[in-house]
């Protein structure tokens, strides 16, 4: 069992700067948990506290059944993959892989067998007699992964492991890591993962659940789908999803949302999901839910300022009452709509509106099936 529980975890630097504000997080055995947030949100600090590389100043960390607050990293049943690989530069790949087991005092034959096993899984057998400086970035990262894997730890900790790789390699390593996690799970091995990243694509594609952090606090913990469909507040709304969700200031009356001089009808289904009725609101509409239309139905008038052709879709940048917004549309719709010029009409999907309380920043819409 390698469930990880953080209770009221705090980190204060030098008695003054509070980096982590008493966070609570429960990570199930075998779960792939992604900590995501902008730089400086203390996601790495949190991970390093779980690893034991950073002392905690308050609260409790449990791994399995043990409180590990003061245990050294080597005794926590964890393995870590670092952003810059952190391979031992003077040791060949073989020694790098076996070092942890050697320190643990395992017999040589067992270490050698484990090295061969891991090298086969990660396809690094031809690299075993090379030094780290003779490896490419992707190879080095696989060795770093192997060094974690070989210890058969309860918890894998990943600290932005893919951010030093190029885009193509990153995509393939993403698949490799999730695959590996699945295979470990199938084999019945303990395989809890805590994965830190600032890249939302990694977070969305890899995590069983995602924990969004900002300024040392947890804003929302949810599955990728829930996070996308029902962001708890304005920050999560703008952080998750690409292009970013359009956030437009407005006011709310019983059946209408007023944005500047224009208005959007509030569908009864949407209205029924509001848990309260804030007057000052921020309307959130994902670019994918803002359709470019050419018919005469109700829609928002906007001025197009630019378009990015992505192949299968077009990102349209426009000004709505002087505020920049983005809409994602198909190339066909784009061509039909722009034949008339820069004036375009955008229609938000009435069931995909998010209404945020401007005062608190919280999402006032209750979750529903929004697709």
């Amino acid at each position, binding site marked *: 069992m390698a469930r990880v529980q953080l209770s009221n975890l705090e980190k204060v630097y030098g008695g003054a700067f509070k980096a982590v504000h008493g966070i609570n997080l429960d990570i199930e055995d075998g779960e792939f948990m992604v900590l995501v947030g902008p730089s400086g949100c203390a996601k790495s600090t949190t991970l390093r506290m779980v690893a034991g590389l950073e002392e905690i100043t308050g609260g409790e960390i449990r791994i399995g059944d043990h409180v590990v607050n003061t245990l050294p*990293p*080597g005794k926590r049943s964890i393995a870590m993959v670092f952003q810059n690989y952190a391979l*031992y530069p*003077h040791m060949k790949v073989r020694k790098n892989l076996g*070092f942890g087991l050697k*320190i643990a005092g395992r017999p040589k034959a067992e270490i050698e067998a484990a090295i061969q096993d891991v090298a086969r899984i990660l396809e690094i057998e031809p690299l075993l007699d090379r030094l780290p400086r003779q490896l490419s970035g992707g190879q080095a990262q696989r060795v770093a992964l192997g060094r974690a894997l070989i210890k058969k730890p309860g918890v894998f900790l990943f600290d932005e492991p893919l951010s030093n790789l190029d885009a193509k390699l990153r995509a393939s390593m993403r698949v490799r890591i999730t695959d590996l996690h699945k295979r470990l799970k199938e084999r019945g091995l303990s395989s809890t993962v805590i994965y830190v990243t600032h890249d939302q694509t990694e977070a969305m594609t890899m995590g069983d659940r995602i924990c969004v952090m900002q300024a040392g606090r947890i804003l929302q913990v949810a599955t990728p789908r829930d996070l996308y469909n029902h962001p708890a507040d304005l920050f999560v709304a703008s952080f998750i999803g690409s292009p970013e969700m359009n956030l437009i200031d407005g006011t709310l009356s019983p059946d209408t949302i007023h944005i500047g001089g224009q208005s959007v009808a509030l569908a009864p289904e949407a209205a029924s999901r509001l848990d309260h009725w804030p007057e000052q609101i921020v309307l959130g509409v994902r670019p994918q839910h803002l359709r470019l239309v050419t018919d005469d139905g109700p829609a928002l008038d906007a001025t197009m300022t630019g378009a990015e052709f992505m192949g299968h879709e077009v990102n349209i940048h426009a000004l709505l009452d002087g505020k920049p917004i983005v809409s994602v549309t198909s190339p066909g719709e784009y061509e039909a709509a722009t034949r008339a010029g820069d004036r375009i009409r955008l229609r938000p999907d009435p069931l995909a509106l998010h209404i945020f309380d401007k005062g608190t920043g919280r999402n006032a819409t209750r979750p529903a099936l929004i697709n």
Partner: protein
Amino acid sequence: MTDLSHMNAMQTRRRLRNQKISATIRYAVLFAVGLVMLYPLIWLVGASFKTNAEIFANPGFIPSEPTMEGYRKGWETSTPYTFGRFFWNSFLIILPKTIGTAISCTLVAYGFARFDFPFKKILFGSVIAILLLPNVVTRIPQYILFRDLGWLDTFLPLWVPSALAGDAFFVFMLVQFLRSIPPDMEEAARVDGCNSFQTLIYIVVPMLAPALISVCLFQFMWTMNDFLGPLIYLSSVDKYPVSLALKLSIDTTEAFEWNRILAMSVLTITPALIVFFVAQRYFIEGISTGGVKG
């Protein structure tokens, strides 16, 4: 077109010629200055093969009648011991001192570079302060201390301060070098189960190797050339290192046998020169990465 290509060719030729002239001037100046610096050394080697009479008669460095007499007689010395004995003494001083320096300075530098402890800043400040303190200032208190300990006329006063990281310069150099190495590898080692000491032995020391080699080389050369330390603490001739032994041959003869002194001087600087040239690569690497990058 032809005009243009002709002009281009002319410009290229002119540029090449200018480069050649400038290179020639640069190398000529470098060679001249280098020769001025090296001449005493070259003269020393040449003169050690001359007869006593020729040393003062002939200013050139090529001996007219090369002789090994200076080496033969110089090696025998005017004491009951041969010069080999003094070399052995030097070795006995240098080896423990260098090893002690490497070990103690590594430990202290590791502590300063990687750990937080109370009064760290003040303590590191005092290390730097020692660096700025002239050596001479501490000679008398040190002498009295070692006299009271009964260590006079032993090698202990020469070994012990270095074995306790007394050479602030080396500590400083290693700290700077360590600061330039990211701590990730050490963290990886801790996750792999190493304690601080294992991390030091398995990870830090191998990464520190270039700087450590420089430290050992510096200590070797400085100790080999140290005259004042042995002069103050050693009084029996049988414990003299080569630096004192050279002076000995000047003291004990009425008319100085210069060719013997010069011959032994050549022998004295030989080990340092050999070590320097063999380890030059590490030496430069250690200084540049430790001193400049840090």
